[in-house]
């Protein structure tokens, strides 16, 4: 049979590529149980001491809390702003719409370290460095394009006729927005908010510039640790993050349908 060797070849290739993509995660998990300070492959034994160190290390505890505070504010703000931008672009025609869209999607192209450096300089000017505010502003700008896209996709599935119907029935624009459009957009809003929160929690390059030692977020604290120590504490904390992210993805896929949010549903 001719198709068989093709299929075999294809699935071998797919398996190899999946190994390449997931190998780093498995290696981190393997290394995190390494008993000694020096990593060895395969590990000589099994120990959870690095997990204990990771969760009790003060720098990581503070950084984790900082990250949660920043992500909570940044993702919620980005959600509100992203919804506003998506609605503007989808429902209104006005002068400068293209320009506004271009500026707000530019953070996808502008290197993160450039954005971070810019906010560091701006923060110095406004004297708000060393505060959460500058980190939150930077994160909002960075995650906004992703949120806007997620909401925009879900907005396309909302029939504008429903809004017109609500208006005909006497609803004010605000009421029809809150009672018709927003409820229909809920999956997109939830997906966008989740994406924003995760991206904010894991953002590194820009955060390195805008965080101070007191306000540093987890990735920055991890980077500083990697530069000073080589023990597997980072492996333990990375393993926790990988497992947490994977679980969130599985749950999100189940409830929200990642393929729908990412617009890769086949016709």
């Amino acid at each position, binding site marked *: 049979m001719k198709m068989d060797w093709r299929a075999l070849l294809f699935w071998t290739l797919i398996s190899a590529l999946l190994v390449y993509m997931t190998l780093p995660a498995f290696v981190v998990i393997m290394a995190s149980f390494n008993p000694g300070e020096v990593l060895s*492959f395969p590990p000589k034994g099994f120990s959870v001491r690095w997990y204990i160190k990771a969760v009790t290390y003060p720098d990581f505890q503070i950084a984790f809390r900082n990250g949660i505070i920043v992500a909570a504010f940044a993702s919620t703000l980005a959600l509100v702003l992203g919804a506003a931008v998506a609605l503007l672009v989808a429902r209104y025609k006005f002068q400068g719409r293209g320009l506004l869209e271009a500026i707000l999607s530019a953070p996808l192209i502008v290197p993160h370290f450039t954005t971070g450096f810019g906010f560091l300089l701006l923060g110095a000017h406004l004297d708000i460095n060393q505060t959460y505010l500058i980190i939150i502003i930077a994160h909002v700008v960075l995650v906004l394009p992703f949120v806007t896209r997620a909401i925009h996709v879900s907005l396309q599935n909302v029939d504008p006729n429903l809004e017109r119907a609500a208006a005909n029935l006497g609803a004010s624009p605000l009421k029809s927005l809150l009672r018709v459009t927003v409820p229909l957009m809920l999956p997109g809003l939830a997906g966008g908010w989740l994406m924003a929160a995760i991206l904010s929690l894991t953002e590194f390059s820009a955060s390195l510039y805008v965080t101070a030692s007191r306000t540093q977020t987890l990735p920055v604290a991890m980077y500083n640790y990697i530069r000073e120590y080589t023990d597997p504490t980072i492996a333990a904390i990375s393993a926790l993050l990988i497992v947490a992210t994977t679980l969130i993805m599985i749950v999100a896929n189940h409830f929200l349908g*990642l393929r729908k949010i990412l617009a*890769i549903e086949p016709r």
Partner: protein
Amino acid sequence: MQTRPLFFALLLPSIVIAAVFLFALAEILQYSFREFIPGSLDVGGFTWANFARINRPIYFYAIVDTFWIALLTSLFTLVMSYPLAYALVRTERNWLRTLLIIAAITPLFTGEIVRTYAWMLLLGTEGMINTLLKSLGIIDTSLTLMYTRLGVVIALVQFAMPVMIILLATAISHVNTDYEKAAANLGASPGRVFWRVTVPLTMPGIIAGFIVICAWTMSAFATPQLIGGGKILMISNVVYLTGFSALNFPFAATMSVVALVSAFGALAVMKAISTRIERGTALHS
């Protein structure tokens, strides 16, 4: 119009956040033309000197290396992501689809530091790849993967694949399979159908993916910083070094401007090329 108050309520915050971003970029531009005063964070008056300094070999090579690494990464990412995106869209098995999407997308959300650290464990002299190859007897002495361009690219490709897979899968999912069936009915082999029908029809996704990954890679920082270890310098690493080791903010700003111009310049060039390619491969009806 009745909808005006709502319109302004939506417009105002959008303009504010756009303005804040522009102010941050304007700060960089402003600093890039300022004189550096050694030992001080204050800056002097207007000068062109920062831009003249780019000519020095170390900075010039960092710029060239940035482009080179971005191109290599985009190319490998494209070639390796296409099969996965294809399988993701076309498989009929539910469990496989779930497995593929979780495995393909999750790395996007674990963050730059976690991924880079994982690759440090893999690529090191005593890392997993070397240990494995040695115990299998394939090599005798360790391969040097850390602190090399190859090592940086290997890590960056894995880092870039989720985004490429999303973009390619979107493109592949929009291909009308009737075209493929028609080609097969007319006697084309599966390989020919793929290369002559599927690939041309997904060309917009391929080009978009290539461009996005190129821009994305040009802004990579943690990976070249930790895996390049100072031996591989991209623009991002130069900015960090001059900004935080030498505290030369003006020159760091200048290199940031270079990065910004490079990213948008590369984008414009690729857009121009892509318009030509798309014209060449579009199926005319």
